[in-house]
């Protein structure tokens, strides 16, 4: 990649980190559109626990991974709410970027388009693991 692309990438990531790491603490804590629609018909207490009535949300169950260390956008063990939310946001952005960029990088088509210095270090064609995986899934989808 050219320097301009690196600059854009780093700049974009910094914006995302700032939004998830700091601005997230000023987000509205009211239930979102889905949650509020599902609670219509029920009465809830100050903590949004259902205390009466009938509504689509009344059968809601616990999350399978509700005790994960980052559950509910907080870091378990960090007492300070601001820090906990911000840190979970930062970790989430980095994790999402790593999974997204890594996955898309493995999926990308190679050996075509404009030659870049990177191309000389990667095999142009051939049987890299991701090529094999894609071929397998294609065969699976066709069958």
């Amino acid at each position, binding site marked *: 990649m050219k320097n301009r692309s690196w600059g854009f990438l780093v700049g974009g990531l910094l914006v995302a980190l700032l939004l998830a790491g700091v601005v997230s603490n000023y987000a509205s804590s009211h239930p979102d*559109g889905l949650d509020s629609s599902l609670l219509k018909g029920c009465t809830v207490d100050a903590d949004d626990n259902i205390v009466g009535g009938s509504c689509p949300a009344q059968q809601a169950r616990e999350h*399978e991974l509700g005790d994960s260390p*980052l559950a509910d956008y907080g870091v378990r063990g960090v007492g300070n709410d601001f820090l906990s939310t911000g840190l979970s946001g930062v970790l989430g952005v980095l994790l999402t970027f790593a999974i997204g960029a890594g996955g898309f990088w493995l999926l990308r088509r190679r050996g075509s388009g404009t030659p870049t210095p990177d191309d000389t270090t990667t095999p142009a064609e051939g049987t890299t693991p991701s090529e094999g995986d894609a071929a397998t899934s294609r065969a699976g989808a066709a069958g």
Partner: protein
Amino acid sequence: METLAMHISNGIIDGPVAAVFAALALAALTVCVLRGRRDLDDRLAPMAGLVAAFIFAVQMLNFPIFTAGVSGHLLGGALAAMLVGPWVGALCVAVVLVVQALIFGDGGVAMLGLNITNMALLGTAAAYLLIALLVRVLPRTRAGLAVTAFVSALVSVVVASQGFVLQYWLGGTTDLGGNLAGLAGTMAGVHLLIGIGEGLITATTVLTVAKVRPDLVYALRGLRPTSAPAVPVVGGVR
């Protein structure tokens, strides 16, 4: 229950319907992988990762809407479709939803297929159909691009919300006494307001990217008369 759940929680839709939508989502995402590979090159791959990370960040930013006591947040399908195209865009939103379900306890793991269907597939598809149309009929100006982003984002949010209503009709766990229309109306009304926020965020982000790096806005690629290979070099070659 001090939770920040944003997506469908466990127990809202019954197991069989959730399983059917999981299979449906998996099949559709496979198609997105196969088609998206054509768009993914050395330059787009890291940018698509950035789009996913950005959507994750902005989804945390619940904004108040006019209705008292209700908030909204970005879904991101239109933003992703504008920047990286429909196939890779749907995958971006799906990556966000998977991370949220598996790491942040948001949106039941058993409900993942439902959430992916609504936000990653329906939302992105609705947005891209509108983008493809509007980008051709509207003037090719910044204002035209802004309107395209705003309208496609707004509509995509309402469409995604009705995807949930369909799922609830098929497998909702609480009997609404035949009042599905009530749920549909409530969801549509709230998400129309949320869609305004989604539209503003999407338009602002797309305009910013278009100003800094217009070559990174997928929706602008279609405006080139032929599908000649994009030459990233500025300045006349001929």
